[in-house]
């Protein structure tokens, strides 16, 4: 682990040092428009503070010495005056912020981790649900359709998805349903954590209507026959679409209204028509809950305080969508292949031959084996999510590690770039470690001696 971390920082450091201009004060610090004397003073200050006038290898070794918990100590005139085992590690001070990097990272890393930790379960849940179904119904409409849609989703650039979601759903030109930027409103910090009402009757009404909505939709999904279901859902889609379109800010021509209504009608029709019972019931249940909450929300009375949690969730919806769709699109294809491979294998045939039901073959025998490639990929998923956070955080102006990274490289902040590399390297390696542990859990034959 340690050699890999060293290698990672060395690669990034080499990139910075080998660039034209290198790690010199003239290249890193913007001194334009200063008097010659002031410029000289500023350059001297940076040279003394960060050792930018020293050769690159020395700079790197000094940085390493700084971050390692045990190492050499320096006296006033920058000479080595001793070796200490407990000098403590220090990530240095950022050029652009003028604050200790540790402090900055303490603010930023939890935000990026929050985004990642919410995304990963969602990615795996959707990927496995879709992938297993596609593999068992090989060659049928669901398989072909989901394969095509997932490949399409995988090809959508994150920034396009982010720009479209933001443009349509958090902009006052269209639907201003979601906040434009950040992770919470300033006033939310003064709110209590949970939402609450001035009037005690309202939450009961809300709860009741959510439950009623869920119940109605689940019953509809379970009991009604396919044609009724599809038609009902299509009508619902039409109504919802028309309502959405007429709710749009600004002028909306009939073409837009028709298009939106037809789009929703199509999606809802496909959902109602779907033969994948558990998926359909789950989705329709969630839809029912949502509609119930909507109806109750429209008739709510009394003062309502959103609370910190709800505010945070509200801010997180669009970024999380951007974060997850690419991942589950890729993983659902992978899980389809892996389940399919195992379903066609000899041991699955043996199990079937001795009379195990198809359901048990799938969930007891095949499923666990097909998890292995998914776990392998999870190790690579974390770096790609960290990379994705660069884009998502820039679009939604979330002050996380990704945005900090972009700022750091744009302004050529040596300490910050190296520290972010180090932290993301550590996170990635932790991801590898967790993947190894899950590997052993999923397959008892694997052991790490």
């Amino acid at each position: 682990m340690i050699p890999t971390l060293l290698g990672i920082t060395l690669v990034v450091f080499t990139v910075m040092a080998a660039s034209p201009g290198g790690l010199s004060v003239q290249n890193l610090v913007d001194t334009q428009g200063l008097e010659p004397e002031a410029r000289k003073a500023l350059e001297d200050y940076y040279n003394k503070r960060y050792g930018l006038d020293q050769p690159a290898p020395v700079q790197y070794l000094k940085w390493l010495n700084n971050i390692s918990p045990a190492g050499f100590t320096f006296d006033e005139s920058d000479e080595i005056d001793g070796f200490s085992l407990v000098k403590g590690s220090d990530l240095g001070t950022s050029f652009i912020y003028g604050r200790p990097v540790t402090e900055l990272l303490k603010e930023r890393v939890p935000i990026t981790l929050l985004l990642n930790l919410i995304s990963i379960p969602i990615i795996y849940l959707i990927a496995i649900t879709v992938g297993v179904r596609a593999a068992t119904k090989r060659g049928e409409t669901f398989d072909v359709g989901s394969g095509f849609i997932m490949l399409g989703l995988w090809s959508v650039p994150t920034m396009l998805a982010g720009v479209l979601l933001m443009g349509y759903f958090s902009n006052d030109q269209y639907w201003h349903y979601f906040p434009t930027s950040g992770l919470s409103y300033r006033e939310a910090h003064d709110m209590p954590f949970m939402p609450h009402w001035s009037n005690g009757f309202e939450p009961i009404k809300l709860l009741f209507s959510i439950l009623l909505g869920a119940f109605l939709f689940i019953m509809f999904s379970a009991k009604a026959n396919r044609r009724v279901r599809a038609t009902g859902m299509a009508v619902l889609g039409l109504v919802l679409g028309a309502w959405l379109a007429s709710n749009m800010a600004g002028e909306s021509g009939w073409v837009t209204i028709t298009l939106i209504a037809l789009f929703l009608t199509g999606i809802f029709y496909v959902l109602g028509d779907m033969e994948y019972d558990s998926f359909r019931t789950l989705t329709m249940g969630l839809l029912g809950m949502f509609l119930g909450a909507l109806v109750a929300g429209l008739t709510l009375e009394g003062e309502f305080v959103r609370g910190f949690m709800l505010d945070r969730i509200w801010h997180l919806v669009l970024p999380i969508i951007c974060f997850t769709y690419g991942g589950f699109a890729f993983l659902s294809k992978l899980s389809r292949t892996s389940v399919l491979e195992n379903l066609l294998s000899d041991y699955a045939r043996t199990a079937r031959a001795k009379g195990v039901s198809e359901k048990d073959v799938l969930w007891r025998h095949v499923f666990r084996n097909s998890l292995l490639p998914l776990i392998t990929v999870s190790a690579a998923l974390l770096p790609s999510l960290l990379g994705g956070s660069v884009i998502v955080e820039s679009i939604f102006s979330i002050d996380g590690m990704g945005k900090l990274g972009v700022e750091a490289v744009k302004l050529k902040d040596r300490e910050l770039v190296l520290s972010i590399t180090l932290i993301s390297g550590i996170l990635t390696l932790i991801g590898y470690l967790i993947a190894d542990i899950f590997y052993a859990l999923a397959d008892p034959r694997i052991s790490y001696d």
Partner: protein
Amino acid sequence: MTELTTKTNSGYAKSVLKNTFSQISARIGFYWIAAVALLAIFAPFIANSHPYLMKTTDGISSPLLQHLIPADVIIIVIFITVIVLYFLKKNLAFNVLALLTVLVVSTILSFALIKPPQLVVYEKYREMERNNQLEWVVNAPIPYSAKDYLRDYGETGMEQPLADDKRNHWFGTEQSGADVLSRMIHACRIALGIGFVATGIAMLIGVILGGLMGYFSGIVDMLGMRLVEIFEAIPTLFLLLTFVAFFGSSLYLMMVIIGLTTWPGYARFVRAEYLKLRRMDYVQSAIACGLPLRSILFRHMLPNGIAPVLVAASFGVASAILFEATLSFLGLGLVDNPSWGQMLNQAVQSASFYWWMAFFPGGAIFFTVFAYNLMGESLRDAIDPYLKKKT
């Protein structure tokens, strides 16, 4: 003997290609890429402020031809050569050699002979037309260049598609007033060029390093794999950002940089294949014959181990295009030159949302990436015999 091997080889390649393109999705992807490639090659003839032909008091002239830059000419010459070579049906070595010769000769000739005017004034034709100095004029289908900011129309900037009756901007205009469609057509070159060259560089590094790792195994393999792990543990996008921020962003540099940061995947694939192949009889006999390492690695082993790399490459082209778009989107891409990502960046600015800047360039990125992914998917299905066998 050589005759035989090449025959079987091309037979396998042919059957894989046939299987790949027998799927409709792969064909659709191929057609899209072909269309984008044609747009890229003929970009100056499709979208240009300079008219094809015009007649003034000085006589007939063709400003468009006068303003072609050497790169335009080279691209077109290469395109014609490829077409000619395709119909000649010679062997691969001849084709590569001919292509390289034409490339070098045309580059030298065009840089020596073609001297386009340094100062380009796009507005002058429109002004001449307004002042009735032109007797007749034949314009390009889209009469706006990528960098024609329409200064003669005053303050232009973000305009909806077809907002103005006097000017036909099918896809609207961007921030500084240039025609979006024209910029998108000119950006095809950058997207395709970056995709191919960056993937080519990555593949080259990956094949050489992965090949050495797989062939020698042991300590070389161990060291190489640590290197691969190091590169895989850095988020690629972040490494790219660092590279571009410190080295500056020119087109060619960007290609090299994307290639330098995405090779580990290819190295992994090649290594895995070579580890399998090195114990094969034909490799052992090649070693026993005393063939040089270069010949064993690339002539004997590579054709048998290249299949998974090709699949990865077709996804790799897609991701290289995405990387370029992302860099431009984050404001670290090419400055003045048109790029899809940079246009997409203008879609959401200062609380306003310009839908045409999101849909058209974003759609172009999406469809191109989708096309490559479709082809990659089909290629993988054609190469991977495992699932097919069990059908």
